[in-house]
């Protein structure tokens, strides 16, 4: 039996998901279709404002959840509803089973509820002798197969029509077609009798409205309407996080939820149930309506300043829809019950550390989820915080402790890099790649060629190449990051020449070190904080107009993470903010500040495409500047499909999950190949390491260069 608490078992599980061709194909199609549908659904609307509105209303509700619960309860009791509060999953199941026993309910129908999945309600009720039938088509299918959902909105997305047809053949005892329309009708008929026979109906809820004790349910199939209408006993199991003050709050969430979930303006049915409307079945006692609110850690979470925003989640599933890792491995390997980025987080809070400890590391930190979250939750940031929390509880592994120790001392780190440069000589080829990987890597890491460390790091070149600029237009400090300093110094050299030609004075503060993102990614915030403070002191932001980086990941980390990491530091908090304000990526500076035009470049007809680094397009919101510069510097630009999808690098991620990283890269390189371009430009040394190494390993006829190098190549002589 696989044990997710063990990394080896989890890796095995991921490996078998990667081998599922149907799943991979379905996920690829879905990823592309979803993006387009979402865009259409939000057309003409101010998406950011709608999302802010949801975040704001949810934060308000979370901060006074206890008060809302009291209000809901008081209103509910006036309308004949019985309200229960369950402290945890077991308690909720016991309450619902007791209702079933007391009312003699044996046959139970359910509409889709992630909260009931969270408590494993079906198993419990079945164990208590009840017959439980899921009525949402996808949920019914996975229930019959004895599986959990692989997506929060489309629980059976991992299955083909043929698998469903075989399943329905078993269920009906009659051979079934594999025509989807017909299969849906078979389910309609088979489930109708379940509705008719049921004693009790169980639903979840999307909203629990406190001022009127109304529950709101969104469905497309219409099953929740029958579940709440036909049986005499009605139960709703609702997480405390679903409480909102008024129907106006629910309405604001509804503007975003279906658009974000499935690209629909609204689901087919939105049902608002208040109290017990007259019931016309045959029973002397009439309708009974029970609402079971589930705590299961939510009240503690609401009081936690670091993590309370997790409760903003409206369960739209969008964070899975855009996740490059989810796309490769599917939902069963990307969550315990809850799936996608929010699933990694909720697994820890609702299902415990054991289930979460390896899952939490399966985030590539591309920021795609944060970018689409219906409630503006900082998902990647929280994933890192949860990872750090788990490490603090369980002890830090040797490799992250070591890396933290090394990075805390710039001198030690750089000495080690210089030592490694010498040590690699026997395996370093003249083309700049390592001939074979050092033995600490397994075979799985061989999907790309890795670059050798440069003979002379940028910091050693600097005294010789430092230009003199007489009357500078701007004075900037260059933040190199460790990869460009020690592996790709030529990218920085190219940039320095370009900038000095534009009368920009460039400073290179020697005390700068790694930005600290790798230790942050490994769950070592203390080390990340220490490195940040060293860099803030080193960069002396008050001396310069801008701090330029050619590494999108460094730029995004300096800009967004530093002010947070150092917010409680007495003397450095304001310096970190000042520095963050001055950080600008190379492309934005050249295009938007210097306003470079085509006059300084020769035209070349080289067909050129672009990969948008995650931390550039989403992390910093820079989309057009690099594309403009490719055109201005004389190239023929051909956009690649899915230009903004992650390349699979993710820093330490590709070392932890090499097989997933390799699959994401393969898809990326296919998209690049389809453009027919001979030059691939990007603006992050990590992406270059991944893409250039992957293209080389495949033997592709493709040059992968940094934007600064591409521009430099076409620079007219002075």
């Amino acid at each position, binding site marked *: 039996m696989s044990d997710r608490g063990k990394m080896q078992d989890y890796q095995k599980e991921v490996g078998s998901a990667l081998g599922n061709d149907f799943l991979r194909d379905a996920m690829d199609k879905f990823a592309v279709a979803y993006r387009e549908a979402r865009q259409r659904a939000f057309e003409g609307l101010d998406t950011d404002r709608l999302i802010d509105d949801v975040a704001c209303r949810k934060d308000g509700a979370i901060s006074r959840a206890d008060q809302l619960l009291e209000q809901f309860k008081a209103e509910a009791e006036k309308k004949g509803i019985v309200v229960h509060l369950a402290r945890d999953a077991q308690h909720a199941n016991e309450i619902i089973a007791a209702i079933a026993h007391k009312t003699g309910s044996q046959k139970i129908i359910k509409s889709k509820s992630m909260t009931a999945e969270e408590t494993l309600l079906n198993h419990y009720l079945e164990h208590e002798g009840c017959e439980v039938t899921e009525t949402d088509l996808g949920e019914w299918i996975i229930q019959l197969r004895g599986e959990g959902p692989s997506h929060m909105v489309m629980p059976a997305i991992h299955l083909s029509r043929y698998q469903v047809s075989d399943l329905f053949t078993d269920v009906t005892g009659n051979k079934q077609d594999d025509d989807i329309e017909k299969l849906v009708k078979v389910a309609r008929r088979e489930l109708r009798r379940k509705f008719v026979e049921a004693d009790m109906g169980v639903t979840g809820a999307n909203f629990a409205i406190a001022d009127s004790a109304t529950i709101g349910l969104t469905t497309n*199939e219409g099953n929740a309407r*029958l579940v709440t209408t036909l049986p005499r006993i009605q139960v709703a199991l609702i997480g405390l996080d679903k409480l909102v003050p008024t129907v106006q709050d629910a309405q604001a969430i509804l503007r975003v939820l279906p658009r974000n979930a499935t690209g629909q303006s609204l689901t087919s*049915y939105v049902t608002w149930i208040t109290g017990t409307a007259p019931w016309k079945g045959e029973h002397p006692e009439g309708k009974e309506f029970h609402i079971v609110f589930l705590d299961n850690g939510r009240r503690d979470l609401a009081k936690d300043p670091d993590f309370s925003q997790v409760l903003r989640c409206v369960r739209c599933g969008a964070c899975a829809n855009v996740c490059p890792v989810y796309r490769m491995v599917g939902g069963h390997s990307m969550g315990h019950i809850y799936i996608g980025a929010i699933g990694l987080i909720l697994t820890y809070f609702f299902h415990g550390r054991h289930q979460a400890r390896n899952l939490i590391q399966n985030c590539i930190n591309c920021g795609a989820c944060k970018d689409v979250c219906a409630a503006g939750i900082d998902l990647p940031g929280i994933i890192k915080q949860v990872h750090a929390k788990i490490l603090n509880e369980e002890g830090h592994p040797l490799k992250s402790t070591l890396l933290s120790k090394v990075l805390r001392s710039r001198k030690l780190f750089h000495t080690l890099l210089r030592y490694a440069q010498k040590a690699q000589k026997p395996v370093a080829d003249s083309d700049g790649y390592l001939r074979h990987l050092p033995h600490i890597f397994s075979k799985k890491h061989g999907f790309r060629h890795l670059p050798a460390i440069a003979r002379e790091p940028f910091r050693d070149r600097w005294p010789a190449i430092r230009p003199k600029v007489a009357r500078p237009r701007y004075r900037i400090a260059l933040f190199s990051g460790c990869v460009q300093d020690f592996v790709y110094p030529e990218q920085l050299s190219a940039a320095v020449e370009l900038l000095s030609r534009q009368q920009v004075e460039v400073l290179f503060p020697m005390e700068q070190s790694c930005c600290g993102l790798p230790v942050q990614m490994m769950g070592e915030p203390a080390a990340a904080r220490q490195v940040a403070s060293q860099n803030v002191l080193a960069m002396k932001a008050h001396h310069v107009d801008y701090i330029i980086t050619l590494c999108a990941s460094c730029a995004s980390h300096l800009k967004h993470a530093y002010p947070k990491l150092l917010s409680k530091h007495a003397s450095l908090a304001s310096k970190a903010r000042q520095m963050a304000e001055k950080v600008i990526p190379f492309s934005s500076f050249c295009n938007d500040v210097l306003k470079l035009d085509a006059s300084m470049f020769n035209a070349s007809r080289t067909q050129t495409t672009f990969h948008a680094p995650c931390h550039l397009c989403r992390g910093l919101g820079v989309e057009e500047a690099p594309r403009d510069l490719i055109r201005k510097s004389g190239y023929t630009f051909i956009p690649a499909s899915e230009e903004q999808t992650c390349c699979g690098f993710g820093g330490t991620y590709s070392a932890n999950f090499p097989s997933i990283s390799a699959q994401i890269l393969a898809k990326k390189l296919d998209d690049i190949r389809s453009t027919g371009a001979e030059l691939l430009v990007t603006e992050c040394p990590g992406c270059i390491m991944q893409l250039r190494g992957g293209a080389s390993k495949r033997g592709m006829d493709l040059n992968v260069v940094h934007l600064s190098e591409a521009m430099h190549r076409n620079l007219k002589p002075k």
Partner: protein
Amino acid sequence: MLESTPLHRLFRTKAEAVSAIVKEATGVKDAIAYALDICNQKEACTILPSGCQHNLSEKAQALCDGKPAKLIAAPDLSQPHWEILSAECDKAGIGVIKDGLRNHLGGIDIGITWAQFGIAETGTLVIDSTDEDLRLTTMISEIHIAFLPLSGICESAADIVGSLQSKMKSHSNYLAMVTGASRTADIERVLALGVHGPLEMHIVLIRDEDV
């Protein structure tokens, strides 16, 4: 064209985008005639692929077999309109009921109900479904024909949320927002209409409710 304003046109466009069939009628009589027309065109439980013809388990088949030839439910028509409908149904040999929907859970052919509001932004109907027979009518009919007064069309949900709120606060009720027919994409993300609810949604826009 009845729906002459941009708001009415937006409602139609959005409703049609979610596969609703939108028609116009000068008054209720006209709308009833339309409903009968649809019923006459439809053969009970056969034209629409509603499932009875498929290989079902014995129990599910039994529920299908219990269904009479053709049946219309119209739970909330006013008395004069009900009389018009039942007279027409008698002539055409179609069964017609206004309550007792629980006796027909295998399905009915046509359900006729009023909708109180139409939300143009999303093509949504707002139907007060507190009465159980009306609620079931909108759930178990294969074709749901909703009569919507033109005056009930508003721009966005924000325009009617206050009215919903006062209902919710005052007493027990069951309010439905319905956007198109029942649908699923649970198998291979292929859209299929008519899972547990109507397979078709028709909206008849009515200029004058008294005619």
